[in-house]
């Protein structure tokens, strides 16, 4: 698995540099003081998605599966590494933001923003959710087809969420919405330990089932 | 040193070419008793031919008593075989000559005429 991670890092050298520049840019110009809770997870998801897709694109471009599967690697190693690198990208992205913000704080910049545990968890959660949706398509269909489908899925999620939000507002009196509201309130009232555990559990559940699905798909693929 | 010239264009199978050439080298004394031959695999590598071809040539050479193969050590030109070979050949020559003499007798060809023919053929062949 180390070899494959090394491979991803080596082939994505240029992209990592671009991402770093982008983060620098974003951190310099953006004022996070109130919007950080949305902005940082958003940035993490976008950058992680970009790296994930780039790595899959480069694998596809080189038709490298023939080589990778001829090496002493198992198909499940390849799948596992893709999930592992997802977290790796997300963590690197958050870490870079943290470093830039620390520098800003040290320079007593007025817009310096401190990363909270909650934002960190939300970012990781959002990135893993994105990967858990994307990878099964990728491992089932290959890069080209999965790209189309994942685009459709993400747009649906994006516009769908605002649609759902509008729907919720409209029917705020219905018992289902009431119950949902209570659930949200309950989550909000949880202690840090409680919400951390819950988030990690969700991450584990999503990525775990997504991984199992991807593995099954990839096992059946032919090259 | 063993020099072999292999032709791919020849109708003669390659193992046969190797066989004939090594035999000639041994009979003419260019390879002496006890001398090591290259291994089957080294020879195949140098001539860039099949291992099966060199193996077959060596097996044939061994069967005819030209070489000895010691497992794990390699193949060597058999000692004493030059004399043995000469004797074998001499026996064949005697047989054929006897046949020729018989034919000559039945045709009424005399000894002196026969000797004349023999020396004529011998010199011609040389």
């Amino acid at each position: 698995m180390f070899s494959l991670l090394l491979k991803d890092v080596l082939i994505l050298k240029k992209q990592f540099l671009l991402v770093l520049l982008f983060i620098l840019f974003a951190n310099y110009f953006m004022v996070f003081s109130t919007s950080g809770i949305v902005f940082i997870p958003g940035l993490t998801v976008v950058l992680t998605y970009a790296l994930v897709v780039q790595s899959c694109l480069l694998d596809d471009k080189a038709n490298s599966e023939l080589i990778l599967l001829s090496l002493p690697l198992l198909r499940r190693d390849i799948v596992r590494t893709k999930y592992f690198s997802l977290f790796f990208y997300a963590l690197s992205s958050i870490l870079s933001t943290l470093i830039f913000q620390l520098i800003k704080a040290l320079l007593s910049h007025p817009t310096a923003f401190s990363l909270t545990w909650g934002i960190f968890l939300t970012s990781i959660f959002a990135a893993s959710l994105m990967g858990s949706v994307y990878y099964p398509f990728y491992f089932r269909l290959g890069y080209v087809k999965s790209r189309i489908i994942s685009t459709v899925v993400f747009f649906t999620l994006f516009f769908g969420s605002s649609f759902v939000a509008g729907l919720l507002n409209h029917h705020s009196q219905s018992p289902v919405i009431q119950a949902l509201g209570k659930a949200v309130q309950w989550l909000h009232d949880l202690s840090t330990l409680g919400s951390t555990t819950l988030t990690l559990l969700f991450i584990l559940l999503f990525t775990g089932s997504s991984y199992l699905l991807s593995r099954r798909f990839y096992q059946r693929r032919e090259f | 040193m063993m020099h072999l010239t292999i032709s791919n264009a020849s109708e003669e199978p390659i193992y046969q070419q190797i066989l004939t050439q090594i035999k000639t080298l041994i009979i003419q004394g260019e390879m002496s008793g006890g001398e090591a031959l290259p291994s089957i695999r080294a020879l195949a590598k140098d001539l860039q031919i099949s291992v099966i071809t060199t193996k077959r040539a060596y097996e044939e050479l061994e069967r005819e008593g030209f070489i000895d193969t010691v497992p794990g050590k390699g193949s060597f030109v058999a000692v004493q075989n030059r004399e043995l070979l000469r004797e074998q050949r001499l026996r064949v020559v005697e047989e054929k000559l006897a046949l020729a003499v018989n034919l000559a007798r039945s045709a009424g060809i005399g000894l002196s005429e026969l000797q004349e023919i023999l020396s004529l053929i011998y010199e011609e062949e040389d």
Partner: protein
Amino acid sequence: MPNILEVENLSKTFPRFSLQKISFSLAPGYIMGFIGPNGAGKSTTLKLIMHLLHKDSGQIKIFGLDPQHYERQIKDRIGFVYDENHFYEELTLKAMARIMASCYSHWEPQTFTSYLEQFSLPPKEKIKKLSWGMQMKFSLALALSHQAELLILDEPTSGLDPIIRHELIEILSALREDEKKAVLFSTHITTDLEQIADYITFIHDGQLVFSRAKDDILERYALVKGDPGLLTRENQSLFTGWNQTRYGFTGLVPDRAQARLLLGNRVLFEKATLDDIMLYTVRGKAHV
């Protein structure tokens, strides 16, 4: 010694092509040529062996092991060269080699460096800057640097000049000096194999034509040339295939001795090459 590779009744069906009950085996210390026209199923067979495709039925054993249970251990001992570049073009040779090296348990850096030198490959060059011949050599250097016991080459020589092809042959025959190693070499350019190969496995249209010692094949098969009038109905069964013109015919017989017995001195016998054998087998008697 047990076989390095055993393929038994291997079958795989695609919508437009099927590989049917292919069987052959390869012992250590030998080079096997895997021949057949384009589309005969050579790549499919090799991909099934490498488990890039899933077989429908049949058996594959590599180093005596079942690849379904010992995939990693088996691939650790296989070196491969494919007919196209499948490397990351943007990487340098060195970086690509580093990735691959970290996968093998017996990687030998010195061996690899010496092959790079021997092939005049620049380690700091990007892969996309290499010609196809250089890429093949790079592939070969990787395949030879981890003590692989089985070398699988899929059309490595197509599109290469005779000089590089000859170099490859030299390397393979040097490799064969080690009697523990074996090579499976697929190609449709049979001249590469005419000399060096020990065994030939010939497939056509997804079916096995033969898998035998090359010497045996070349000794039995012959080209026969003669007057078209000699191609009587009884004689026709002697031939695998033939080509007929106004002036005469050339045909391939799988049994030289039998043909000589029946046709005798009325025809001319010539040595058949692997190319002849492939050509007449594929063409058959269709165009008479």
